[in-house]
């Protein structure tokens, strides 16, 4: 009973997904393949949220800035035509300085708005999006010359809406994609028809291990100490502000890489759209996995990614079959994303208030 109570959020979503799947009429194979792809391309972004949560800064809506850093790096590879896996890793390396800079600025801002990090991160995401548009739409081609005019709008200023990333699409996904064969065990035999992007998954697993290991280091211990109580950490001589900034930088760099993994799977960048919902969707996924504003584990991140995207896959079709409109399903999943965040935040704030009294 306690186990159910503790995991009520994931359980509700498992039920919701099951019902949705039933009504969607999708085949297992299609569903599983789609889910595998989405798990591979999205889990990195969700995992990037864990460190700030444990450092007591709540859900970092500011990872939108990390996604932007990733996109800037992607643009550079497109402009300089760096192709294939080399191009992809070049983008990963180039994203680091952007992400460190953005993370550092975000961290400073968060330190000035202690206790209000989440709303600050959210608004910062909107604000940064304005700056991002200013750069991509106005500065590009005007202040920042671009030789390849095909990338620009007809006026010669600003990027076109969609930039093709064919040059390194599936750069890592295509490595060792294999279909399991010859398995003839009920249930497991479905694996026979599923594409498994081994390298991408390996990278995700390595990241998970790295995050676990990070929390066995002195720095990880500092994150946790600061996360529990800033004041006591300060008294013990931990440089709280610095530790918090480092946590945000980590998160931002991981988000930048996560966005690049995402893009290499999609194969193009919606210059003005790909990053916008990154924060909301990642946060919603983490919360659906059963995490809270102050507690998150890697297992929750992965489970949440699976559940959230399962819902994403089934809801348009389920909506169409149930309500006669695919649009309903689309709006439903947006509603779920916002609603889950809203409810999780409200519950967290409520619990804290009750505790105080």
């Amino acid at each position, binding site marked *: 009973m306690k186990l159910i109570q503790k995991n009520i959020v994931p359980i509700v979503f498992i039920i919701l997904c099951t019902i949705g799947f039933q009504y969607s009429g999708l085949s297992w194979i299609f569903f599983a393949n789609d889910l595998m792809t989405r798990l591979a391309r999205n889990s990195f972004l969700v995992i990037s949220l864990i460190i700030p949560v444990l450092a007591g800064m709540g859900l970092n809506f500011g990872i939108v800035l990390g996604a932007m850093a990733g996109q800037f790096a992607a643009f550079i590879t497109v402009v300089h035509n760096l192709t294939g896996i080399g191009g992809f890793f070049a983008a990963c390396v180039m994203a680091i300085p952007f992400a460190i800079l953005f993370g550092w600025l975000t961290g400073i*801002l968060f330190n*000035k*708005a202690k*206790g*209000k990090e*989440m*709303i*600050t991160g*959210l*608004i*910062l995401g*909107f*604000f940064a*999006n*304005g*700056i991002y*548009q*200013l750069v991509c*739409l*106005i500065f590009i081609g005007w202040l920042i010359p671009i030789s390849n005019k095909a990338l620009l709008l007809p*006026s010669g*200023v*600003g990027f076109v809406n969609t930039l093709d990333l064919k040059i390194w699409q599936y750069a890592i996904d295509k490595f060792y994609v294999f279909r399991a064969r010859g398995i003839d065990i009920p249930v497991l035999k479905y694996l026979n028809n599923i594409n498994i992007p081994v390298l991408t998954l390996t990278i995700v697993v390595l990241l998970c291990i790295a995050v676990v290991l990070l929390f066995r280091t002195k720095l990880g211990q500092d994150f946790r100490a600061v996360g529990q109580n800033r004041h006591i950490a300060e008294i013990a001589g931990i440089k709280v502000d610095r530790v918090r900034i480092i946590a945000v930088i980590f998160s931002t760099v991981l988000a930048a890489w996560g966005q690049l993994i995402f893009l290499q799977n999609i194969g193009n960048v919606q210059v003005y759209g790909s990053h916008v919902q990154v924060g909301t969707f990642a946060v919603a996924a983490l919360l659906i996995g059963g995490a809270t504003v102050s507690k998150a584990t890697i297992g929750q991140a992965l489970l949440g990614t699976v559940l959230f995207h399962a819902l994403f896959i089934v809801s348009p079709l389920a909506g169409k079959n149930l*309500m*006669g*409109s695919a*649009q*309903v399903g689309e*709006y*439903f999943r*947006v*509603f779920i994303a*916002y*609603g889950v*965040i*809203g409810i999780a*935040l*409200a519950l*967290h*704030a*409520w619990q*804290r*208030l009750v505790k105080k009294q």
Partner: protein
Amino acid sequence: MGNSLLNRIGIPRLIISLFLAFLVASAFSYGLPMGQIFGAMLTRFGMNALLVLAMIPTIQAGAGPNFGLPFGIICGLIGATLAIELDLRDFTALFFAIGVSVPLGAFAGWLYGLLLNRVKGQEMTVGTYMGFSIVSLMCIFWLMAPYTSPEMVWPYGGDGLRVTVVLDGRMEQLLDKLWSFTIGTVRIPTGLLVVTAICCVLLWIFMKTRTGLAMSIVGSNPRFAEASGLNVNKYRLIASVISCAMGAAGIVIYSQSYGFIQLYQAPLYMALYSVSAILIGGASLQRATITQALIGTFLFNALLVIALPVANVAMDSDISEIMRVIISNGIILYALTRKEVGGDAR
């Protein structure tokens, strides 16, 4: 002395005023039709004023700017769409829309207020996401609602209501045109401004009544309020009710002036724009006055109105939407990072 003057005006307000002055000057030098521009500024001001004034009750009651304004706005949209569904026109339509939306908005505000009282200290984050969720939930409603008016549903078998509903011949610019006159080339939307003024006066009177004072005491110092025998939650609830009711009426007035009802995702960021307008006016997250709301509404909207034509002439691209995003979110960030209250008295 100069320093205290600067403090009183506030750096953001100063920058924005200067920027506005600069844009007005460049508009002149480009020979843009100033009469039209000033007229548009007044109209935009009147359109938005009530939505910004709606921030005052919750700020004064200590619940912060009402990021949950969409709760009120969707009620206003329901009222407005119902008026069309019933084939009402002119002032009947307007009064009906407002008459329906205000009680609905008050009810939504009551529910939202109950939530706010459970999440003290996190009103802004929770409000934002609850606002987002209600807007996306309403998207489903607009799709499924059994409206039949041909003016609102998609003509060829599409699902649900249109994204924008044209108010032409219903209540388009009803207030704007009421007693309207022109000075030179500037058209004054008299009716709209009069309605705004009446709202201000009513709000001012309310804030001075015993209930209004209690609300402000509760917001200023909840512990003081408790020691004075006031029920803190009750007054925060009242503030939320009034704010959402104002938001409901506000969106009807906004829509009639705009000439369209915008459905679906349109109300998503409206709360943010109202919040930033009042902050630009010099309000803080804890205290706001009617004057600040009015100044902020004017500065923010005037800037947007004039930026569009100037940018078009000067750099041949639409920078005004970008500017709106940067300024509105920038000012909220500024307010968030400001020290809670001024220095220590010692």
